[in-house]
């Protein structure tokens, strides 16, 4: 099968993170997946990605700033003309380091916040972090970097959308991503507590729409619909192995950050060049295009819009990644989604022992990344609400990993 060209590299530099959000999209066994890539491996991956056609790089994790070599990575991406976005919890980060990252080649910052005020936000994060995030937001603006605020929505914060919008305005964000939780990874573990009521979704959606209208031209307000409630699957990753390449901390390349759960053979960037992985890795080709589609996808008019939905969700819920995404109302397995309920009292924090610091093995620079005993906050990947293309130009490569 002919591979399309990728637009975006998602670089998960480490799974370590100071936050412990119960909807983290990192693997349940994140602590066993050590940072195996040295700085020189990452810079080579950037070079190989750009040669394949990649123009956007998302630096994420975990908390990518847990490594101390992002300056070197950004400095490598700048002359490649890559648009480099940092997705961060803001911890750890100082104003000086942010300035150094900007000078090295960072183009934009997406900062997560868990709710509109300190007590609730810190409770969801499992870490005292809100006050520091407020400082980070101010530094981002002072240093002239564009700021997106990312908020993962779920039962405990969906009723606070107006307050979250007000916070984004107060912090000077240019974009606000309100992304409903996708139930994979830790979020699936915690689905019984995180899943909201339909009325919460409807109200939040209307509030976000009102904010979008009011703030037009000043702040972009995105509201990522939850596939559990729409009856329609998300266009996951804009289609399997179609626009995105994800590289994890241990060097495994994937079409989607959650695809490690699938029983497929995943190649490592330490052993294969990125173009060979993109073109020939059987895992990338397994669900690329339409050849794999069962009914009702195969004859469905929407197959070119949603690509059959999320392969990882199909696998997580049915045990078969080749089935129609159960989020689709037409799917034979839709009851698995439709019957799910939330409201359990307890959300488990992400847990796991911290992995050791990455090796520096003869690469330059020689300093290993910091070994802070911390962990991540990243929830699930969602498809950003894509706007209709205008006649003059078309939108490409749009998609975002939802961060909390």
């Amino acid at each position, binding site marked *: 099968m002919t591979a399309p060209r990728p637009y975006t590299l998602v670089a998960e530099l480490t799974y370590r993170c100071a936050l412990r959000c119960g909807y983290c999209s990192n693997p349940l066994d994140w602590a066993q997946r050590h940072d195996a890539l040295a700085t020189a491996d990452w810079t080579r991956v950037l070079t190989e990605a750009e*040669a394949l056609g990649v123009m956007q790089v998302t630096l994420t994790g975990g908390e990518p700033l847990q490594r101390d070599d992002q300056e070197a990575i950004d400095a490598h991406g700048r002359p490649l003309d890559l648009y480099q976005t940092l997705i961060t919890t803001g911890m750890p980060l100082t104003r000086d380091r942010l300035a150094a990252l900007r000078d090295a080649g960072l183009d934009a910052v997406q900062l997560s916040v868990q709710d509109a005020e300190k007590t609730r936000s810190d409770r969801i994060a499992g870490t005292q972090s809100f006050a520091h995030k407020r400082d980070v937001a101010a530094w981002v603006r002072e240093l002239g970097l564009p700021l997106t605020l990312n908020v993962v929505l779920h039962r405990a914060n969906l009723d606070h959308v107006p307050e979250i919008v007000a916070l984004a305005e107060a912090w000077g964000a240019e974009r606000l991503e309100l992304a409903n939780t996708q139930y994979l990874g830790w979020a699936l573990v915690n689905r019984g507590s995180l899943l909201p009521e339909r009325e919460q979704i409807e109200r939040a959606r209307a509030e976000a729409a009102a904010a979008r209208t009011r703030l037009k*031209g000043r702040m972009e307000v995105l509201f990522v619909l939850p596939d559990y409630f729409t009856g329609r699957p998300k266009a996951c990753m804009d289609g399997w192995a179609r626009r995105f390449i994800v590289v994890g901390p241990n060097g495994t390349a994937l079409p989607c950050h959650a695809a490690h759960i699938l029983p497929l053979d995943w190649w490592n960037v330490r052993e294969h060049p990125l173009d060979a992985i993109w073109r020939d890795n059987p895992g990338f080709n397994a669900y690329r295009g339409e050849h794999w589609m069962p009914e009702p996808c195969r004859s469905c008019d929407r197959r070119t819009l949603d690509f059959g939905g999320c392969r990882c969700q199909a696998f997580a819920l049915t045990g078969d990644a080749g089935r129609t995404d159960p989020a689709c109302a037409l799917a034979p397995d839709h009851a698995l989604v439709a019957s799910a309920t939330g409201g359990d009292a307890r959300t488990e924090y992400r847990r796991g022992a911290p992995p050791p610091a990455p090796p520096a093995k003869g690469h330059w620079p020689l300093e290993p990344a910091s070994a802070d005993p911390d962990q991540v906050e990243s929830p699930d990947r969602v498809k950003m609400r894509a706007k209709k293309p205008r006649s003059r130009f078309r939108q*490409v490569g749009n998609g975002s990993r939802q961060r909390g």
Partner: protein
Amino acid sequence: MIAPESVVALASKVRLREDRITGRTMLLAPERGLELNASAAAILRALDGSRTVREIAAALAAAHDAPAERIETEAIALLSALAERALVKVAP
């Protein structure tokens, strides 16, 4: 609102680059990439933060041997659409 007398600049978050696969100009912003056609690319590359839309249209008309009115109309439509998404900003 973009008028012929407006002075427009790309927002600081926006970068233009060539797509090495297609050779076309891409407008890049956070989690967004817009593929520009040749005329949109010429208009955006001409934004220098000092000339008005009308002056830019006149310059492009001279360079490409095309009617200035048509280019001005196209430029206003393009820049209005981008301003709505905060991808360009209008000088006060």
